[in-house]
């Protein structure tokens, strides 16, 4: 069987279409990195902003003192003293600290200051316990945001900037006081980081879904139909060889699986390499928010998140390839097989979307196509069903693929019998 797999691999790798798509994918990854790099907020960008705030505070203080000197303000009044004290003892040291931290790229100091800044409000809100409110920033957002900062502070992790509360948005924030504020929060909360690990995460979010599955389906789209099944294609030549019928399909499927693993590894390697060369490697233990039941949450290390996402996406692809093989056997035409694959994906995803609240939704394989949302429990929280989990996803996709393969075996046996 090994020579057959090698033969299939050579055929695939040598096809112009495969090479062109891989080249386009590489160009896309590089282009996306340029976009991520340009949109990454750096300490230098925030330094200018903090510098401006410092200047404004100093000017405000000078104006206040000038007003007192000219007699416009009573310097013995309570308001004057409070205002001056606030500027001198709170805002001025805060902005000076910020400027210093951004200048020295002292990320741990930045985290420390932000944790301190948020603590008072968080303690008050935790005492009230208003978890039910979905108005931004919800208590969940405040609590998880602070916990994330503390995790990074303790482990000396470089945060993705900016770290202010205005960049925190979770699924529990459904409404905003003002639509314009909502728009800017949504914009701020999309944070980019150009280091290797985070670029891998960005790619995972972008590719590990229907879009990525579509690219992989096209890459191996004609692996069965190009043999000219039902026509005068090379399948007849293969059947004259000393190999069993099932070995043809099996070798193709194994080659596709091995090829997929290699491609996923290459894409990850490329992302890591580009990120490391142009920025830095990144932190493997960067925290990823995992939603829990009843406003609970945990954090997962980025490396675990990436591995889990890759494993689940691989199973999504196995399921898609199984369907593609089935359609290819049934209709024997590339365009029709691809079309049916698209119809199935579209119908499956629509069906999943509409039945997400049902009690049996977690048994549907199409629910697990939004891989990162499954791993972070976003899907579970949105659907209000924590049976949507990584392990259930793997199980459901394995079973669904096995069922499709049972149909493939039945169809190929029937076709073989009738062909004779």
């Amino acid at each position, binding site marked *: 069987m090994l020579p057959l797999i090698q033969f299939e691999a050579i055929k695939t790798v040598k096809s*112009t*279409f495969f090479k*062109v*798509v891989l080249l*386009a994918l590489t160009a896309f990854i590089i282009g996306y990195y340029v976009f991520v790099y340009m949109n990454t907020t750096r300490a230098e960008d925030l330094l200018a902003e903090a510098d401006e705030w410092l200047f404004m505070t100093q000017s405000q203080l000078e104006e206040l003192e000038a007003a007192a000197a000219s007699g416009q303000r009573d310097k013995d009044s309570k308001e004057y003293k409070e205002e001056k004290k606030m500027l001198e003892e709170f805002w001025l040291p805060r902005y000076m600290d910020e400027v210093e931290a951004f200048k020295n790229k002292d990320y741990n100091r930045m985290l420390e200051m932000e944790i301190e800044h948020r603590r008072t409000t968080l303690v008050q809100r935790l005492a*009230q316990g*208003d978890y*039910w*409110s*979905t*108005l931004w920033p919800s208590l969940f957002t405040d609590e998880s945001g602070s916990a994330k900062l503390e995790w990074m502070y303790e482990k000396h992790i470089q945060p993705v900037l900016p770290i202010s509360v205005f960049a925190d948005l979770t699924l529990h924030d*459904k*409404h*905003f*006081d003002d*639509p314009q504020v*909502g728009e800017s929060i949504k914009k701020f909360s999309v944070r980019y980081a150009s280091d290797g690990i985070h670029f891998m995460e960005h790619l995972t979010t972008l590719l590990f879904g229907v879009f990525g599955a*579509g690219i992989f389906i*096209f890459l191996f*789209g*004609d692996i069965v139909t190009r043999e000219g099944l039902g*026509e005068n294609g090379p399948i007849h030549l293969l059947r004259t060889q000393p190999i069993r019928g099932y070995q043809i399909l099996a070798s193709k499927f194994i080659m596709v699986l091995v090829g997929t693993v290699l491609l996923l590894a290459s894409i990850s390697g490329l992302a890591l390499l580009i990120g490391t060369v142009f920025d830095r490697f990144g932190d493997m233990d960067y925290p990823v928010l995992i939603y829990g039941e009843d406003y609970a949450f945990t954090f997962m290390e980025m490396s675990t998140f990436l591995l889990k996402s890759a494993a689940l996406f691989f199973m999504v692809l196995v399921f898609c390839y199984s369907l593609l093989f089935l359609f290819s056997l049934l*209709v024997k*035409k*590339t*365009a*029709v097989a*691809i*079309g*049916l694959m*698209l*119809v199935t994906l*579209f*119908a499956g995803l*629509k069906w999943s979307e*509409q039945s997400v609240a049902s009690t049996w939704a977690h048994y549907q394989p199409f629910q697990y196509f939004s891989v990162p949302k499954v791993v972070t429990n976003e899907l579970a929280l949105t659907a209000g069903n924590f049976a949507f989990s990584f392990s259930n996803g793997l199980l459901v996709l394995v079973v669904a693929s096995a069922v499709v393969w049972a149909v493939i075996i039945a169809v190929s046996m029937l076709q073989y019998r009738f062909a004779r």
Partner: protein
Amino acid sequence: MMQFAFELKKIIFSKKLLYIYLLLIAGVALLFVRNVTFQSYIEKEETERIGILVQNSQNLNRMYSSTLEQDPEDKDTQKLKVINSSMLEKLYELRGMSMDKWKNRATIENAFLEQVLHFKEEGGAYDLPVGEINKMLAKNEKHLAENIKPRHATYSMALPNFLKLVVDLFMNFGAMIILVILIGEILASEFETYSINFLYTQPIKKGTIITSKFFSSVLVYFLTLFVLLGAAALVGLFGFKGKYKYPVMIERNGEVDFITIVQYMVQGLTVVSVTVIMVIALLLVYSLLFKHTLSTVFALLATMLAGYGLFAFIKWPSFFYWLNPFQYLLPEERLLVRNAGVDWYQGIPVILLLTVILLLIARKKIETSRIS
């Protein structure tokens, strides 16, 4: 003409077309069966929606009570508590009312929404954005004024609404996927099987091959549309009669406006059909360029995705609607949001122009190609 008839027969009398049409009819029937099955879910969904609002108001009441316990003289909290209690009463009323009494429900819901607006004006925080409240108010008022019962957006059994559901699915991806299945390999397969060489030896102009394949594809598309709508209409007869004046809410220059469900479907099918015709011409050009089905289909879908992405994710000035040929690939939002003086039809001329250009390119390309 002979070539056109030949191409048309090749598609129409193929087993593939028959199976696709059977699948389409079965799909429409299944969709209707699903809607029948989900009728009880409509009520459950509405109960849950009201339940969330009730919970929200109850939580607010508890919060205000505890604030007033600490400071009974807090006038603002007192005022907010009174409004919230009144809102809660309306919600209880809604919760206990049958879904059949839609006029009463709409009236009470509007009274509740007016109170929420007042509550927000007084400084209260409620989990309903003002924009959404205004849309709900306008929708209820329209239904009351026209005396048309509101139907569920997804699981309706009324014929006009069911037709809209089928048209929506067809407009969003459906048309393009059916196109790929039916005519994705109409020209590329001629190169793959070398039957194009046979066509080249026939006493016809090479350009005729393109023209005949193009017009036969267009005809097959309209036939498919006819079969789909026919199947939906026939299946939909088993549901309620419904009203063809059913209002569909759109946003026109930042304001809420309405069109009828028939206008929506006609406009939607027009823009999708025009786009499909352009895509057929593009498919022919790509088939001539790549001479390989998989590459052709991939390039076609990639072009559409890139075109849609380029125009959807970048904010262009409004005159760009006259120049963008990809605006109707997923036309639902384009039909529902018509801001900055833009209406639904702006993209049609540029798409037709591009179709003619693509056809000319395809004809030129095939005329200069040789037997391989």
